[in-house]
């Protein structure tokens, strides 16, 4: 599904190398987790995948199925099936959450040559998805993320994911700022979307999210590289011993 090959990235403004050769192969139907200490390049990877400005790819490439992802504009990546759940979802005053979601869904459908979804069908779809995430219908009427609590913002990200039905979901520190109950709700939302045709890349600093979203593969990232790859046990090892032991071991 997602193939990252020897990816090198530097920050344009600071002329600083952040990613130094990332290799990753996420197959359809699987959940991969990337863990790592602060500053290891996890969030940069998420941003580069989504097409944010300010990063320069100096070597390597990324393919989503058979498409060269790095050639595409952010909106084309979305239409190709990539979705990034933001660590810090952006507040957009004046744009209603519902209008936003419907415009986004229709833009993606249009890009794929599909018919726009009718107002009635959309309403049905969003009510159904919102209900399972315990999202108050009032939240749908409010401007995007404005005045939302941390938990509401993250649930809103998952709601967007559930409506847009992407193939490749990247979750950037979705657990940050969540209490246990909110985390379970978000994880349930993600788990409900797991299926054969869809893959997940879950970026997290802590292991606790992975108790709720069980990964198939766990990678440890440090200093812009994947330094160790293993099964779910690797996450537990981090939880018990911290990153220091693993980093020493691979050094």
């Amino acid at each position: 599904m997602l193939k990252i090959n020897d990816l090198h990235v530097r920050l344009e403004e600071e002329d600083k190398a952040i990613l130094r050769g990332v290799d990753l192969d996420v197959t359809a139907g699987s959940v991969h987790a990337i863990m790592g200490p602060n500053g290891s390049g996890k969030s940069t990877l998420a941003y580069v995948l989504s097409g944010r400005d300010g990063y320069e790819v100096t070597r390597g490439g990324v393919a989503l199925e058979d498409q060269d992802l790095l050639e595409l504009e952010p909106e084309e990546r979305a239409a190709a099936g990539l979705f990034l759940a933001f660590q810090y979802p952006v507040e957009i005053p004046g744009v209603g959450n519902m209008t936003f979601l419907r415009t986004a869904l229709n833009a993606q459908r249009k890009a794929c040559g599909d018919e726009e979804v009718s107002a009635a069908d959309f309403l049905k779809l969003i009510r159904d998805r919102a209900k399972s995430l315990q999202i108050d219908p009032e939240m749908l009427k409010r401007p995007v993320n404005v005045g939302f609590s941390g938990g509401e913002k993250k649930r809103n990200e998952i709601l967007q994911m559930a409506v847009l039905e992407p193939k490749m979901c990247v979750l950037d520190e979705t657990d940050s700022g969540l209490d246990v109950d909110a985390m379970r709700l978000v994880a349930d939302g993600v788990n409900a979307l797991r299926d054969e045709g869809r893959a997940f890349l879950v970026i997290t600093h802590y292991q606790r999210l992975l108790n709720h979203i069980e990964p198939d593969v766990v990678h440890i990232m440090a200093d812009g590289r994947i330094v160790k790859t293993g099964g779910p046990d690797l996450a537990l090892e981090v939880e018990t011993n911290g990153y220091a032991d693993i980093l020493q071991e691979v050094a």
Partner: protein
Amino acid sequence: MGLPARRQEDTEARIAHLEVPDGAAWATEMRKQAVSRYLAMGLPGRRDEYWRFTRPDDLNTPQAPSAAVVDFGEAPAFGGIDRLRIVFRDGVFDPEASDDLSCEGLEVERLQSATAHEIHWLKDVYGVLEARSQEPVARPFAALNTAFATDGIVIRATERVSRPVNLTYLHENPDSDAILHFAIKVESGADLTVLENGPAAARFNKCMEVDVADGGAFHHVRAQGRDHERRAVTHMFARLGKKSAFKSFTLTANGVLTRNEAFIEFVGDNAVSHIAGAAVGDGDFHHDDTVFVVHDAVGCESRQVFKKVLRNGAVGAFQGKILVKEGAQKTDGYQISQSLLLDEDAQFLAKPELEIYADDVACSHGSTSGAIDEDALFYLQSRGLPRPEAQDLLVLAFLAEAIEEIESEDISRDIYGRLKGWLQRHRR
């Protein structure tokens, strides 16, 4: 103190080809007084306090600079709304294109007919509200208008009228120089909506005087725009009685020069006035909102919301003053003027002013200028919106606070539709 010789010459030359129209004695007297006011004030110059942001040159010339008539194939504004249509062609009333002027709850009359009567309600409005506005800030083009306007409509509303009156200004002659004067009296308990649209002329000088009696309500929505080269100087005067309401919204798209002045005066307690404007400019566009609100009564609420989206050399100006006179306690005043600059060539100039002589009031004002939020833009793109669509969505969101001042959903939908059309035509 007289005017400097050069300015006096220009001031006289500006009206040399104009004649005070015939009318009843009171009308002639009012017009002559307006000529005197105009001559005493003189044409504006760049050093005048309220003309520093806007060059008056093209308004000062005796002949109007030409303006090409443009057709975007855009549907006329308010087309889907049941309304009483009153049409002017280059500043001249066109009865053929207009609806029958009889409407329940309304008295609608042409200006020249109303000013011919010795006894008419108009006597207490025509030029009266304009004259009240001339202190302390001179508005010479309004005095000129009162003196020389040969056409216009006067309206008296005696009931709640659900059908809006739509003044449509067609521009067909590239050299037309139109002067129109409207006077409106909203009687106690009556409710009237006036819609305005169209570029009107190469150069357009318009005054609207609105006298709202106790408990009356007046709604105004204007779609100003289209022809790139047109110039306009407009004045809206309002005198508001006890528990009355005045709501005005203006959309301005295109126009090389627009100066919209408003002078709102609260004379009765517990009245409400909301004035809002949304202006979008690309290229050779200069838009100036100059608004004065005078609180001379207790417990009145005034709100001014002005938003401008500018790019490619377009200039926006806002001058807004809230004057709270001694004794105007419990005044609630809010003023916001903001611009969204879509590139580095656009310019926004603002001068908000509060002058308060009462001690128990709540007044706030703010003015900001900024670029589009790149984080929001990226967020929208990451959800599949192409950049131009994402930008349009953010622009509309920025303008929303002003557009929300329109109470009618149908009219507000019409305004949104026009804005979306403009944004699509002006995508980069």
